[in-house]
């Protein structure tokens, strides 16, 4: 076993130190050391995108990033998406437009869409489908995910949106 290394990065706004073997994958560190189990493992070959987190302003598949590569990085996971008790517009959108079913792909979808909307605040359906193609979903057929992203885009642009879900605040169960 090779010697362990201390790695410091910012996770959802919080300075985080972990001690890992160089071979440890970021997804395992997030899930098992940081206890952030939102990012999921669906394929381990960087096809499914369930492990997607925002990493220094990029959407990355954390199953294919070494934790040691995260030294000094800014990492945002789905757990950090809601701010000050307020759900992110994307989280609202997914609930409002029925953009999820089993929920397993959802954290990855949300984090990918989060970065997409930073880069393109008004994406067409075609653009959403193209720029979300790194995330697999087996339940929804993507149609409502597209709607959910469009909903969030509208809301983030300050346009009116219908919010009929009664549980639109963070942490309600």
């Amino acid at each position: 076993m090779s010697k362990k290394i201390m790695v410091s990065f910012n996770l959802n706004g919080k300075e985080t130190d972990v001690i890992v073997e160089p071979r440890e994958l970021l997804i395992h560190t997030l899930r098992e050391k940081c206890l952030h189990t939102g990012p999921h493992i669906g394929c381990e070959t960087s096809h499914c995108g369930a492990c997607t987190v925002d990493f220094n302003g990029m959407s990355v598949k954390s199953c294919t990033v070494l934790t040691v590569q995260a030294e000094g990085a800014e990492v945002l996971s789905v757990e950090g998406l809601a701010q000050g008790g307020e759900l992110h517009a994307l989280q609202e959108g997914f609930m409002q437009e029925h953009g999820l079913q089993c929920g397993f792909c959802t954290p990855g979808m949300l984090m990918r869409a989060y970065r997409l909307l930073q880069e393109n605040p008004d994406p067409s359906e075609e653009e959403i489908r193209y720029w979300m193609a790194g995330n697999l979903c087996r339940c929804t057929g993507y149609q409502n995910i597209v709607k959910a992203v469009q909903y969030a885009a509208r809301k983030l642009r300050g346009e009116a949106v219908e919010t009929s879900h009664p549980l639109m605040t963070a942490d309600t169960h």
Partner: protein
Amino acid sequence: MIPRPFEYHAPRSLPEAIALLSEYGDEAKLLAGGHSLLPMMKLRFAEPAHLIDLGKLSELKGIRESGGEIRIGAMTTENELIWSELLQTKCPLIVEGARQISDPQVRYRGTLGGDLSHGDPGNDHPALMMALGASFVLAGGQGERVVPADGFFLGTYTTQLEPGEIMTEIRIPTPAPGTGYCYAKLKRKTGDFATAAAAVTLRISAGAVSDVRIALTNVAETALRASDAEHALQGKPLDDATLAEAVRLAMAACAPVADLRGDAEYKTAMAGEMTRRALTSAYMRALH
């Protein structure tokens, strides 16, 4: 899906990286985007004792133009290529090609230099670079050398990169205004390698094709230059007959390996179809 243990090195400068590479030699592997090497290590087909991460070498990033050349740092990512206004205006073929590579998350990590150094005939940049007449800057202990893309790829996973060398920059003669271009790729789904793909650049002078370059992806041991097809087109108008002849010659150059994407016959035929598509749309683009 767990890699074997290894030592990790994150050099801060190119000389440091080269020093590490020569120090550990065979035992060391370079880590760029990691989307070929890490999966390989997770399946334990690869077990380098030392991993040298080029991620901190900012000097290997960036896209600029100087002296009629577009110069791209080897660690420039696919998305950076796609979003580059310089490339969109002066070398749109790279943008069109990069957009067809893998998926968005992988394009944030995957790098141009990594794609080329890997020497996989399924990668898309080798053909794109051949079609653009690019050359590569290779840095090693003995200094720098510049080699043309054409001839750089020796076999599957073998290139002219010597042990201890790192690809640092890609140089592309800025395409003349009015150059027609196209990358036509047939794949089973997003994220797949090409069943076959064709990269084309050409110009039209006096109604005839000139300066045409055709390169093919994933239909031989390496990316392939379809020289015979190019010669057949040179100085001719792109009518049905010349197009058919060029396609025939491009197919003749193919020697694909059968896999779940199809047998050799299908892949060869698809190389022909992609060549036809790429030539046709490059021609249309050159006209307008």
